[in-house]
């Protein structure tokens, strides 16, 4: 039988033949993958896969599209990330962790960095962050402006979060002490 594969080989050309028009492989694994037989088993697998996707990407590893510049340059406007909800299941957020903070639900969230924990004091002097009265080195901050914020103590059950982009005026930047129950998870990558 003279198949298309043999024809291309005889011509001495590169053996690139269209997979789906090849009569020699009507039930090849690739073809079966793209055009599966509609059996009961197929529908069961489809149902389980859909359920797994819904649970994973709807509740555990939530895809995020970043809008805004409050976390630049770490997270650029228009980039993508994932919210890993199990990150703080066993241990609370640590300093410098990037967390997602929810509003009324999980469709719109803020991306912020933890800079101070419960009982610590936090303040800004000339744009520099001070925790417990000591200056904090923040290598992730590239844009800085003259932020001034008097000292305050983080209340129990709260953490203090700020965006990495300190180039915007303080009044236009959403940051501050937030209740732990507002923290949805960590951010990957």
């Amino acid at each position, binding site marked *: 039988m003279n198949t298309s594969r043999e024809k291309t080989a005889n011509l001495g050309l590169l053996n690139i033949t269209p997979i789906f028009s090849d009569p020699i492989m009507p039930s090849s694994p690739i073809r079966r993958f793209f055009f599966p037989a509609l059996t009961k088993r197929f529908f069961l697998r489809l149902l389980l896969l859909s359920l797994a996707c819904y649970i994973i990407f709807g509740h555990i590893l939530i895809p995020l599209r970043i*809008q805004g510049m409050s976390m630049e340059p770490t997270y650029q406007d228009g980039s993508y990330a994932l919210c890993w909800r199990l990150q703080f299941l066993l241990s609370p957020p640590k300093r410098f962790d990037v967390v997602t*903070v929810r*509003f*009324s*639900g999980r*469709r719109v969230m*803020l991306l912020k960095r933890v800079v101070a924990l419960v009982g610590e004091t936090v303040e800004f002097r000339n744009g520099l962050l001070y925790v417990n009265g000591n200056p904090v080195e923040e290598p992730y901050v590239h844009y800085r402006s003259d932020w001034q*914020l008097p000292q305050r103590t983080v209340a129990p059950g709260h953490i203090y979060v700020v965006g990495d982009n300190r180039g915007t005026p303080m009044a236009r930047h959403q*940051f*501050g002490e937030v209740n732990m129950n507002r923290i949805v998870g960590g951010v990957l990558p």
Partner: protein
Amino acid sequence: MNNKTVVLILAIVLMVGGAIFFLPSDEKKIRNNLDSLGEYCSTVKDEPLLDALQKVTFAAKLCTDPCKVHIESSQIDHEFGQKEITDRLLMLKKRLSNTTFSFEDTFVDIPGDNRAEVTTTLRLNGESVNGRFTDAYEIQISVEKQDGDWLFSSFTVVEFMKK
């Protein structure tokens, strides 16, 4: 159970399901009003003044007269009449050209026959004099039923992040 019974049961289930899905419930009416409010407040670039005026009038009609607005950080705690709402919204539209107002993560609680509480996230995407911006606020809205219409009676911005 013969085929006729199965078909009858299926038809009843479909009718009940369809009625539940398509008939407007109080919650659906409130959600629709919220979507309309977002649409009326949104602006397009170089929006004609007449269009803008018509939209803000429609937006004001979705609110009670007066309607209370409370924004603690801006020290706003004031009751606005319909005319004042129209004027303020028109000013806002002028300042924010090409801006989309949308409400996400909306939860509606209807504890009484004529009263409801809505918790939602207002999302703004657009342009101001300082360039492109994106912003979000959690808002609690009180809704009242007046003459069969659900109207927004108060807006409170929830400030969960304290500087």
